[in-house]
């Protein structure tokens, strides 16, 4: 009686093990297929988005004004972008990525220093006359990288971002409007205000 029981037990154990292996094989097979699909998605994501890494970093760097924060923002933005990549069907990958970089930057800016965002620009107070700095004076200093950098860094984030998107990334008003979620007319008027303010900051630093 005891022997029968033992034999049954052994058979049972072996059986369970072999069948478990079969099931496990099926599971691994399914996992491998899913893994391959994920790798394909990652490959196409990288092919489409990594070429814009410099643009992403440059925008984040100007917005955050700090090397470490900029890197954190860009990394976070790429992770966010990858998560929602399956939902992206547009053709302008750069604008899409820069939108995410911008949103991520603002999230961190709000968290770090809420004050930074409240420095909105008052057109009436800051209206600049043409005579505030002569072209000749400004022309003399436009090769001064440190001066330009500091004057631009002084601007509110909405001006820093629009100047960098327009002049460093050479984006069209249409693309800028898409990234900043504003109409094209507003892109133009904001650029005008940004340049006016930059001119003012430069003039103040020169004199």
């Amino acid at each position, binding site marked *: 009686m005891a022997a029968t029981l033992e034999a049954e037990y052994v058979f049972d154990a072996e059986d369970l093990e072999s069948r478990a292996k079969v099931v496990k094989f099926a599971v691994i097979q399914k996992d491998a297929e899913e893994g391959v699909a994920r790798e394909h998605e990652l490959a196409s994501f990288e092919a489409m988005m990594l070429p814009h890494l410099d643009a*992403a970093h440059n925008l984040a760097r100007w917005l955050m004004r700090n090397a470490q924060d900029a890197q954190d923002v860009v990394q976070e933005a790429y992770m966010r972008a990858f998560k929602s990549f399956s939902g992206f069907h547009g053709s302008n990958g750069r604008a899409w990525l820069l939108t995410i970089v911008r949103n991520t930057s603002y999230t961190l800016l709000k968290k770090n220093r809420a004050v930074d965002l409240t420095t909105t620009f008052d057109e009436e107070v800051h209206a600049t006359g043409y005579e505030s700095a002569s072209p000749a004076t400004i022309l003399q200093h436009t090769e001064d990288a440190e001066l330009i950098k500091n004057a631009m860094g002084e601007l509110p984030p909405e001006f820093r971002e629009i100047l960098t998107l327009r002049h460093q990334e050479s984006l069209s008003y249409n693309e800028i409007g898409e990234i900043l979620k504003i109409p*094209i007319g507003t892109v133009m008027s904001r650029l005008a205000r940004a*340049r006016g303010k930059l001119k003012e900051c430069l003039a103040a630093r020169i004199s």
Partner: protein
Amino acid sequence: MNCQEIANLMDGYLDGELDALTSQKIEQHLRECSKCEQAYEVNTVLAHAVSRTAPYYKAPIELRERIQFSLREAIGATTSRDAAAQDQLLLRRPEVVRRRVFSEMPWNWLALAAAIVLAAIIGSTLLPRLLAPGAGQFLATQLIASHVRSLMASHLTDVAS
């Protein structure tokens, strides 16, 4: 166009975002109005300063590596977590797994096995018969061969004479 209108459109003109007709009007105004012309020059210089003199912060190589690593980690982590969850299921409910083994086995594997067995049966019974030359075929081969031999012989004589 008056100077105020020009000032409003100047940035669009500078960025080449205006239509041809408006651009032409502004161009004409700038030729006639030195004040606006000077303002335009300042704006051009500023635009160049931002595009050429202001630093462009390229991404450091470590950042690219860090991002690529994190992305791989993100897809890898989910895979191993799924596998771990499956393992736990396997350990906790062996009976259920045992009963469902056959039904969970992919049908294409069963079909493949059946196909191999069938192919083996067909191969072992039919192939030897197909390959062995029949008696009639043997005779035909002999006849053709002797005919070719006779043709070759006369051909050789032709060349010799």
